[in-house]
């Protein structure tokens, strides 16, 4: 088999394939594969102020991290954030998608309005949230509104439980439209006959139809949204850094709610400890894998097999 002479067309194909794929594959090897291998090696080395592999320390970096309260707190932070964001995003984007597909007039307008925040960056959104919307002074918009109901101004970005309001709302505002588009596409795939059959059976469009037709048939879409969301939540950085961050040198309010990536950022770039930073990245990766597997368990990925 292997010794057979390649026909001319196949030989031409061989080199064409190699040339076509080479740029992408080279890039992936240099900027993804090598980094991961190097990162793994660094995570078992002491590497302060250097990225060279000189001083093997075994699992010490990992052990240090598991004893480090700040790191453990960062994991807790992201867990809390995820508990707000993931169900919030699913409920919100699904709700909007259902409302929009059921509306006759102004569908395009509503879709654009909810989708538009996608054009905005996390940095600019954080600016709006921090300086005007959730400003702790009296001139913040939310403080103006709650004053109307007789509530005293709240220091949104510098007190512990309140800080979740700006953090959660900013991400929901930015990302809900994106998932809404995915849900709208999913809803449009549902055959209209199913709804007609339901109407014949006496069920109007409403909660019953949603529960028995729309939601179950969107199961794959929901799984997709859930998966992407959970993976993304572990990368949260921009809004925490910009809403809570003080100056470049201090970490001001970040202590309130510091997600893993912000912790790793300070460890690696402010403290220049790349060994511990790499170890942290792999612990986070492990958490992502675990939560993905748990998701599969909870939503019952294997249900079809049984």
């Amino acid at each position, binding site marked *: 088999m292997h010794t057979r002479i390649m026909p001319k067309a196949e030989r031409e194909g061989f080199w064409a394939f190699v040339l076509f794929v080479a740029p992408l594959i080279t*890039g992936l090897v240099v*900027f993804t594969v090598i980094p991961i291998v190097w990162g793994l090696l*660094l995570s078992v080395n002491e590497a302060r102020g250097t990225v060279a592999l000189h001083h093997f320390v075994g699992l010490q970096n990992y052990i240090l991290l598991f004893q480090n309260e700040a790191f453990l707190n960062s994991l807790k932070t992201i867990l809390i954030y995820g508990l707000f964001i993931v169900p919030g995003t699913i409920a919100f984007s699904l709700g909007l998608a259902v409302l929009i597909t059921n509306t006759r007039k102004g569908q395009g307008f*509503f879709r*654009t309005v909810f989708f538009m925040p996608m054009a905005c*960056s996390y940095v600019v959104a*954080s600016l709006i949230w921090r300086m005007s919307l959730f400003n702790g002074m009296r001139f913040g918009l939310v403080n103006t509104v709650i004053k109307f109901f007789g509530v005293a101004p709240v220091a949104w970005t510098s007190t512990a439980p309140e800080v979740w309001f700006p953090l959660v709302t900013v991400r929901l505002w930015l990302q809900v439209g994106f998932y809404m588009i995915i849900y709208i596409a999913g809803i449009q795939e549902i055959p209209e006959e199913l709804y007609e059959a339901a109407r014949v059976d006496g069920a109007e469009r409403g909660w019953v139809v949603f529960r028995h037709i729309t939601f179950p048939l969107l199961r794959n879409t929901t799984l997709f949204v859930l998966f992407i969301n959970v993976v993304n939540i572990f990368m949260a950085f921009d809004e925490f850094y*910009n809403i809570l961050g003080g100056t470049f040198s201090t970490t001001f309010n970040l202590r309130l709610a510091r997600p893993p990536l912000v912790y790793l950022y300070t460890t690696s770039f402010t403290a220049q400890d790349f060994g511990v930073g790499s170890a942290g990245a792999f612990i986070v990766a492990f958490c992502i894998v675990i939560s993905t597997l748990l998701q599969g368990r909870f939503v019952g990925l294997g249900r079809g097999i049984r």
Partner: protein
Amino acid sequence: MNKKYYLQSVLRVVFMGVLSFLFLIPFYIILRNAFATDRMIIGRKWMLWPWPMHILDNLKELFANEDVNIFTGLRNSAFIAVTQTFFQLLFASLAGYALARIPFRWSKQVFAFIIATLMIPYTVTFIPTYIVVAKLQMVNTFAGIILPGLFSTFAAFMYRQFFLDFPIEIEEAGKLEGLGYFGLWSRLALPNARGISIALGVIAFMRSWNAFLWPLVIGQNSSMWTIQVVISVFLTSQTIIIHEIFLGSLVALIPVTVLFFVLQRFIVQGITMSGVKG
């Protein structure tokens, strides 16, 4: 029955109207603050709209302020986003075409490798990639900011799916006319992939323009700051001129918003495809 239905749809529109209003508030704030004076913004009561509007004054001030590198930031962002978008599409479409159309013994393995890297989250590669970029002496260079973002496995995957569905008869006609694989790709496949290219391109451009963490880490020198980093630096510094930073943000928001409105149809298509096929 009919009356009930009518009432329901009215309620729905009212509810969506209220939600739309809430969703538009941040955009309203950015416009309001951009054309106001700081004293108006931090006044005792919420100022609904700055009157008189300080459009020219504030623009002039922004132009004249040498501390605020808004224009350096815009230039850097434009350069980075255009380069990244172009090469991402080029590399991805080449690879996607080869995977879909060129027979190759290890084609499956190459595809599996691409899918495997597609699954690796950014959090994992972020610090290790910095390490490699540092080893290559590319910290504080545009190459360091741009290069790692040129290789989109997602785009390659989408192109592959698209070319698989592309009618093979057209390409066979091209082959008869003597086109090689490169000719087939550049003359037949790519021109027919305009829709998906625009969709992937505009999403890549927006991602790149709005990216924050990577440019923050690599472009440490203020001459390399992207517009997002510039805004962040002024937001997290102690003294800020509020209307100026909002006007700067407004300027940063304009290119992507224009792109968004002009190409919205393609963006929706792109997301829909990824949702259905991913």
